[in-house]
């Protein structure tokens, strides 16, 4: 079986074995075009690796855990992370490794190379999805090259590839990946040329940067752009970049450095070089029979071709779905640092101050017209902050994922989510709030007469306890809780406090020693020069983890101000009071206040799906998101009352947990959520309390009913329903600590 090919050996019929990239490079090399020294690791090597190690079966189990049409992007990312970790932990079979080492040593010895993906069918005109798989620059030595071949193989299962699995036909049984190993050309200027501009087909486009191409490809470095008339070959326009950065080889990999002043003021290409690149693309278009998308570099005035592929008709920007948006959420460290400053220094302080200033307005003093204006104003404010939340807070959550990727690459842990333990215990606002509630419960527990009074629904007048309860209820009252007055909320809260007092102190998991050990493990596995970066990234990820939960609470406080204003309108108008207290219907409330003849449309609520009693779900599959095993009575959260009816030891089952509703978590024995992902709020809070948690269970809140007896296996991600067990037979709840 042939594992390696030199470009001179590759025939057209070998394409399935060497992939699109290697095949195109071979054609160019055989035409004596300036291609760097290259060898190709064939798909045979990938297949041997997958089959001899049993990895293909492992990937199959993970990849088909859930149906794709039921998966969110976050779940695809999780699936990809798990698979990537399987690759990282699986050694290449020794005979295969030895064969590859010999060839790599013979060709490159210890010189720097680029290790690139060469997927089968990747570069064909009908299915090109550039950027789905990985490439690595400046890799040295056979062992390192071998490790990076494995990383490229693993990228067959990148989140982007899974997202486009239908288009690229990604299937476990048929999957294959070839790898190109190419001498690293340390070009002084690099770029790409599109033989036909995607926007204006009469033009060709050249983009160029100083240094290596990596910066241009991943968007770190802004390129200069030239438009060339395809017929005449004349340069039609040149758009200079704000030249500031350059990507250069580091001791290992690449680094971004500042560009020298001289180069900042000078375009990376002369007109002469632009025309040479254009001419070369023309030649390639003729050779391949279609317009090409070519990556090139100038090595001391010598033009070298790094890869060429047909320009595809697929315009991913025009995707009717949100896939490009999901992929845009993946940010680099520098961008994440910028987002952190923006969120911590601007967005959150401004949100807090805006909520505070709105609180000061005495709504009762406003005339109807003024109240209508105020509601409108508050609705605009909510929209403004929601936009900020989507633009800045959601992308910032990628800090957690970036840290996870770096951690797993360095440590290769058995559990691919081990890195989360380093991010937990970062004083989430929801946890702080729960601790406040626990303190009130402890007071109740210690004071029998207070407990008797509270049990009768009363509070001691003018007491500190009463004030604290009122303040807490005020903070808890967000639009999420819907139509509930503060006095009702307070009464519900007292019931909750009694329940908590009877349960005793909820166990919040403290793992300081384990965290310290993991941190040491991470640093020990990082090269010395990267340790500072690892610590900086961990710090950023901790903020990202904390804010992922907290920013919803800040947003909730802003939305509450809109709710208060609509509540005021409710109190004064019988017509308004017919509109459900929902901040999304603020515009109708405004119309009612302004026009006494306006009658709101009645909206029929969506009928509740009735479960077919002949089909009884027995065992549901999701993702294990919090380890442990618990059995208990389910409490399905469909409306506010369900939250306040929560009893200790119950399993919280819901569509999606919002941080504004996690105050009942200290009472819960486990969490089951329809929404999937390891980083969703339910999973975050479950880990804080060491609760078993299964997320991504399709229709969990419809298939499970309150009082169903369920077992939550947080190790395997399985929820078992045994409805017929009477409540008195409730098993003792256990979690991993107990």
């Amino acid at each position, binding site marked *: 079986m042939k594992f390696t090919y030199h470009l001179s050996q590759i025939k057209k019929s070998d394409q399935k074995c060497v992939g699109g990239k290697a095949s195109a490079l071979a054609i160019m090399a055989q035409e004596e075009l300036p291609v760097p020294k290259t060898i190709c690791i064939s798909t045979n090597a990938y297949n041997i690796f997958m089959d001899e190690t049993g990895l293909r079966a492992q990937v199959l*189990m993970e990849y088909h855990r859930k149906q794709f049409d039921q998966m969110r992007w976050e779940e695809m990312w999780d699936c990809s992370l798990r698979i990537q970790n399987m690759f990282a932990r699986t050694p290449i079979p020794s005979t295969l490794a030895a064969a590859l080492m010999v060839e790599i040593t013979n060709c490159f010895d210890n010189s720097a190379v680029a290790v690139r993906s060469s997927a089968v069918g990747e570069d064909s005109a009908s299915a090109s999805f550039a950027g789905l798989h990985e490439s690595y620059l400046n890799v040295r030595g056979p062992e390192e090259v071998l490790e990076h071949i494995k990383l490229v193989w693993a990228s067959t299962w990148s989140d982007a590839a899974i997202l486009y699995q239908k288009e690229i036909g990604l299937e476990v049984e048929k999957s294959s990946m070839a790898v190109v190993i190419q001498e690293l050309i340390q070009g002084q200027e690099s770029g790409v040329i599109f033989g036909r501009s995607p926007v204006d087909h009469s033009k060709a486009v050249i983009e160029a940067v100083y240094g290596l191409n990596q910066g241009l490809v991943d968007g770190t470095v802004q390129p200069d752009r030239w438009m060339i008339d395809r017929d005449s070959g004349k340069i039609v326009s040149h758009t200079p970049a704000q030249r500031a950065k350059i990507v250069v080889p580091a001791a290992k990999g690449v680094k971004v450095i500042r560009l020298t002043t001289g180069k900042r003021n000078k375009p990376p290409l002369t007109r002469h070089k632009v025309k040479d690149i254009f001419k070369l693309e023309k030649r390639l278009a003729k050779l391949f029979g279609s317009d090409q998308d070519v990556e090139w570099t100038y090595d001391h005035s010598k033009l070298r071709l790094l890869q060429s592929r047909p320009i595809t008709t697929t315009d991913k920007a025009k995707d009717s779905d949100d896939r490009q948006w999901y992929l845009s959420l993946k940010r680099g460290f520098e961008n994440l640092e910028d987002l952190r400053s923006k969120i911590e220094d601007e967005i959150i302080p401004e949100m807090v101050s805006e909520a505070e200033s709105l609180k000061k307005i005495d709504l009762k003093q406003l005339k109807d017209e003024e109240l209508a204006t105020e509601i409108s104003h508050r609705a605009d404010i909510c929209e403004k902050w929601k936009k900020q939340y989507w633009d800045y807070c959601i992308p910032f959550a990628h800090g957690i994922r970036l840290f996870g990727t770096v951690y797993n690459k360095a440590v290769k842990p058995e559990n691919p989510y081990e890195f989360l333990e380093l991010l937990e215990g970062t004083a989430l606002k929801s946890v702080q709030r729960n601790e406040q509630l626990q303190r009130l419960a402890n007071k109740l527990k210690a004071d029998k007469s207070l407990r008797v009074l509270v049990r009768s629904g009363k509070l001691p007048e003018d007491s500190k306890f009463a004030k604290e309860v009122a303040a807490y209820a005020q903070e808890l009252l967000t639009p999420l809780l819907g139509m509930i007055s503060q006095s009702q909320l307070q009464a519900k809260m007292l019931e909750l406090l009694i329940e908590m007092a009877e349960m005793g102190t909820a166990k919040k998991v403290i793992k300081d020693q384990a965290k310290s050990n993991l941190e040491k493990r991470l640093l020990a596995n990082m090269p010395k020069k990267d340790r500072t970066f690892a610590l900086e990234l961990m710090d950023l990820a901790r903020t990202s983890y904390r804010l992922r939960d907290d920013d919803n609470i800040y947003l909730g406080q802003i939305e509450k101000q809109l709710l208060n204003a609509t509540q005021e309108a409710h109190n004064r108008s019988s017509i308004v009071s017919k509109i459900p207290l929902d901040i999304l219907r603020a515009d109708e409330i405004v119309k009612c206040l302004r026009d006494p003849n306006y009658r709101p449309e009645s909206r029929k609520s969506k009928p509740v799906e009735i479960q077919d009693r002949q089909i009884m779900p027995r065992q549901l599959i999701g993702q294990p998101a919090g380890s442990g095993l618990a059995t208990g009575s389910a409490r399905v959260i469909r409306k506010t009352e369900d939250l306040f009816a929560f009893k200790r030891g119950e399993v919280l089952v819901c569509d999606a947990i919002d941080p504004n509703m996690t105050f009942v978590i200290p009472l819960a024995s486990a969490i089951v959520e329809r929404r999937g992902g390891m980083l969703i709020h339910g999973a975050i809070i479950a880990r804080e309390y060491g609760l078993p948690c299964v997320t991504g269970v399709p229709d969990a809140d419809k298939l499970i009913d309150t009082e169903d007896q369920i077992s939550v296996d947080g190790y395997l991600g399985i929820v078992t329903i045994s409805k017929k067990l009477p409540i008195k037979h409730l098993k003792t709840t256990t979690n991993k600590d107990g």
Partner: protein
Amino acid sequence: MESQMSLRKQLKELFDKQRIGVLSTQKKNRPYASLVAFAVTDDLKSFVFATPRTTRKYSNIMASSRAALLIDNRSNRMSDFRRAMAVTAVGNVRELRKSGKNRLIRLYKEKHSHLEDFIKSPTCAVLCLEAETLHVVDHFQHVVELHLNK
């Protein structure tokens, strides 16, 4: 959510495609499993199979009529872990009167015409498992129960 109609359709297709299932019986705490050729009615309630009266499974059924029949579409490939479906029908087994008019026996003969001589033999019994519940497993661990008498 799984609708009953789509689940029933899926099950009917599985039962029509498969010819053989695994029958589980027991007597005096001694469990036993055997392969049987089966046919099923459109309402998915009656699973017909045949066996010589001298067999262990027949003897077990005579002693205890409770039995289970497992029908699956595994192909002995690794993809079975995610793609295979297995259904266990649980209920009571009764012996059928061998008559040309018996619709269950006709159903059985239509599916397994090569077994016509086999069931004609006076030593062969034709039996029917009247299923109360079908336990359906797919996607490795996803399980639903279809209660047929509810």
